[in-house]
């Protein structure tokens, strides 16, 4: 059975990374071929494994009481004994979730590999780049497959470093160095929490194996307080890695890296690791209301704030970055209420957001700038990019029947079902978020593709190596959502049962499909689209519509109200007030805090070193020496050179001793 071979899935990229670093330079295609072949092989394996899990999980009927029954394959070898009865195990934990991640990671990674052949063509460190890509894929897959929290931590840190190295890929430039540092250190800050959590869980349950930990937790062997402590600590890690409020500020800066990297790491895979981790330990989180509540609140705040920020970006990648943060917010919030909702959104989002980034890359490649002012009218020059980008945007805007629609709907529904303050909060903000999403994506579409080309240079369609991956992902963006159709016609809710860790749980927590609710969401989305359309339709050159005489005049008049609304609400309220306000808080406050923390540590270090170490401790040590010499200078004066003084001293000594002696002696 193929799942037994799952260990090959991370192994293959690892080998390819090693090969690229060792012999890549000497190969005709400078190592790219190794990476692509390896990822292709990985993808095949991943699909095979996924298929097996599918066969095992989907469509089996289970009685509500029985529970269990989900596919789970655990294999482990002891990597090292740590203490009396605890060890770290190198092993694999293959279940629906893992299989799903395999497919996602492998596919996106393969696409990015192919895309990069064109995008990075002619770069000085081409081979190094592909080596890092493979290394990253390995690390990510290791994180996914790990059956042991320590090994998972290994993967977790490795992806962090790969991200650090890839963001700082062009390390000559200062701001890029800073961006990579900021990314690594901010996530590392979260990792402090994760490490504590791992240690705590291991300490509480006496094992680092995820299986054992979950069993122990479900059996209630872990005190509730300790569990909550560990989970909250872990959420800190999640917040860092998945760029949640308030640790999200690193992700936009991370856009300094090559665009394909943004697509792979900062959209589809690494940033979703947080969500994955929560899903991995879902039974544990399910035990602690405090933890899930925290998740919900954080997710809600993130999705709305990030969405607002996306409104005021002129850099296309920045827009996508903020939208990623906001979508991650949806995932985290969704996980708070329903396992499936979060995981499903993670899945679909991976595809279409990767697509959007690749599209953005293609645009930048063509226009030679990230800024949308320098674009415009690109539809004519690069049709494929346009269409794929459009599909991706629709998926993100969550227009039925595109992928995003199904998953986001799932989140909102589960939030509503769950109810309670958090539920309502997530539901409400999620709805508004939908509107905002639609607004900014439409804005991007108009600014980039509509109207005349405003930039310099000769825009052109990207080479096949870049368009092909976009097409593939576009297909996914359209169709991938259907794997979880709520209708009984085909295999209903296949995805849900596919990724489920415990079918019994699935029976207890069915997610209904509310047509009305879906409709409302769609309407909101469309409202956003309309608002944006109303504003950006005419930007910036004169719209031919104006020259239709009375008709246009009437239209103009008819649009007074419209303009009023849009002016007042959309432009003024949303874009000019809330957006900047959010932006300011972000840059000034949060970012200030993060940077300030760094500077503060530095300053503290300096002060500590100068006064504490060099003056204090050092002073004590040297002081002893100095005082010894000082006393030496004094004492030697007794040696006056005059023999009679010597004799005197001698007799004084005798007398003193004699007295002491005669008195103390008896």
């Amino acid at each position, binding site marked *: 059975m193929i799942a037994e071979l799952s260990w090959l899935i991370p192994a293959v990229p690892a080998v390819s990374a090693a090969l690229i670093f060792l012999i890549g330079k000497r190969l005709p295609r400078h190592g790219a071929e190794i990476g692509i072949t390896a990822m292709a092989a990985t993808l095949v394996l991943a699909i095979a494994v996924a298929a097996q899990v599918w066969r095992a999980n989907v469509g089996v009927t289970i009685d509500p009481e029985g529970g269990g029954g989900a596919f789970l394959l655990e294999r482990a070898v002891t990597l090292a004994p740590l203490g009396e009865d605890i060890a770290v195990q190198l092993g694999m934990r293959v279940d629906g979730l893992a299989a799903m991640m395999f497919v996602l990671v492998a596919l996106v990674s393969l696409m990015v590999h192919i895309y990069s052949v064109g995008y990075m063509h002619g770069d000085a460190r081409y081979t190094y780049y592909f080596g890092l890509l493979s290394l990253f894929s390995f690390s990510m897959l290791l994180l996914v497959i790990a059956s042991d929290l320590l090994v998972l931590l290994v993967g977790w840190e490795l992806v962090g470093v790969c991200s650090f190295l890839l963001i700082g890929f062009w390390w000559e430039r200062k701001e890029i160095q800073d961006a990579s540092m900021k990314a690594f250190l901010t996530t590392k800050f979260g990792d402090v929490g994760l490490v504590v959590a791992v240690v705590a869980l291991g300490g509480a349950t006496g094992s680092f194996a995820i299986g054992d930990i979950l069993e122990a937790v479900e059996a209630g062997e872990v005190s509730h307080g300790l569990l909550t402590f560990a989970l909250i600590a872990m959420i800190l890690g999640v917040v860092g890695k998945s760029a949640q409020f308030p640790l999200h500020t690193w992700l936009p800066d991370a856009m300094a890296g090559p665009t394909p990297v943004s697509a792979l790491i900062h959209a589809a895979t690494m940033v979703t690791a947080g969500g994955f981790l929560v899903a991995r330990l879902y039974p544990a989180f399910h035990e602690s209301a405090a933890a899930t509540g925290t998740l919900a609140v954080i997710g809600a705040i993130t999705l709305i704030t990030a969405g607002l920020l996306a409104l005021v970006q002129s850099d296309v990648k920045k827009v996508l970055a903020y939208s990623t943060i906001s979508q991650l917010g949806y995932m985290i919030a969704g996980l708070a209420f329903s396992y499936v909702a979060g995981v499903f959104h993670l899945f679909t989002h991976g595809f279409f957001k990767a697509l959007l980034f690749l599209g953005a890359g293609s645009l930048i490649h063509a226009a030679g700038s990230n800024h949308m002012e320098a674009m415009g009218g690109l539809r004519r020059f690069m049709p494929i990019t346009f269409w794929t980008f459009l599909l991706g945007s629709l998926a993100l805007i969550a227009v039925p029947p595109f992928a995003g629609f199904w998953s986001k709907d799932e989140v909102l529904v589960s939030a509503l079902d769950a109810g309670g303050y958090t539920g309502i909060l997530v539901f409400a903000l999620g709805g508004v978020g939908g509107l905002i999403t639609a607004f900014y994506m439409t804005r991007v579409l108009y600014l980039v593709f509509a109207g005349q080309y405003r930039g310099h240079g000769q825009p052109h369609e990207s080479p096949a190596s870049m368009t092909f991956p976009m097409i593939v992902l576009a297909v996914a963006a359209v169709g991938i959502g259907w794997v979880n159709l709520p209708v009984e016609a085909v295999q209903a809710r296949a995805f849900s049962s596919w990724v489920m860790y415990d079918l019994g749980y699935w029976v207890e927590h069915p997610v209904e499909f509310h047509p009305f609710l879906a409709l409302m969401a769609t309407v909101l989305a469309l409202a956003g689209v309309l608002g944006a359309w109303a504003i950006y339709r005419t930007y910036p050159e004169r719209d031919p519509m104006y020259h239709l005489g009375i008709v246009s005049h009437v239209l103009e008049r008819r649009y007074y109200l419209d303009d009023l609304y849009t002016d007042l609400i959309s432009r003024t309220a949303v874009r000019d007030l809330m957006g900047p306000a959010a932006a300011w808080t972000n840059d000034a406050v949060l970012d200030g805090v993060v940077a300030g923390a760094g500077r503060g540590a530095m300053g503290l270090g300096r002060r500590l070193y100068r006064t504490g170490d060099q003056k204090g401790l050092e002073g004590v040590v040297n002081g002893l020496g100095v005082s010894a010499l000082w006393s030496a200078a004094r004492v030697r*004066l007794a*040696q006056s*050179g*005059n*023999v*009679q003084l010597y*004799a*005197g001293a001698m*007799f004084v000594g005798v007398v003193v001793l004699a007295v002491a002696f005669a008195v103390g002696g008896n």
Partner: protein
Amino acid sequence: MAAIYPLTFAALLFSVGVYGVLSRRNAVLVLMSVELMIAAVVVNLVAMNEIVATQMGDPLLTGQAFALFVLGIGAAEVGVGLAIVLLLYRNRANVNVDDAELMKY
């Protein structure tokens, strides 16, 4: 005869010697003061031998014998001392002990 008299006498003699050693600048006088101290010792030994021997029969008259040793060796010491003083005089044309402080600290 009570032991206290000779003891006190010797002690006084000794103290005078010490005073001389500490106060006299002339090396020869210093040496003579030393002789006083040694004399004090001799007095002690002889007297004590007399008294102690009567108490616990000491056939060998240790004290007396010891006194002889002391006298002999004391003489030798002072002899050597005078030689050194002479040397000092030859190099420095005076015999003041407290001028001799080439070496200090």
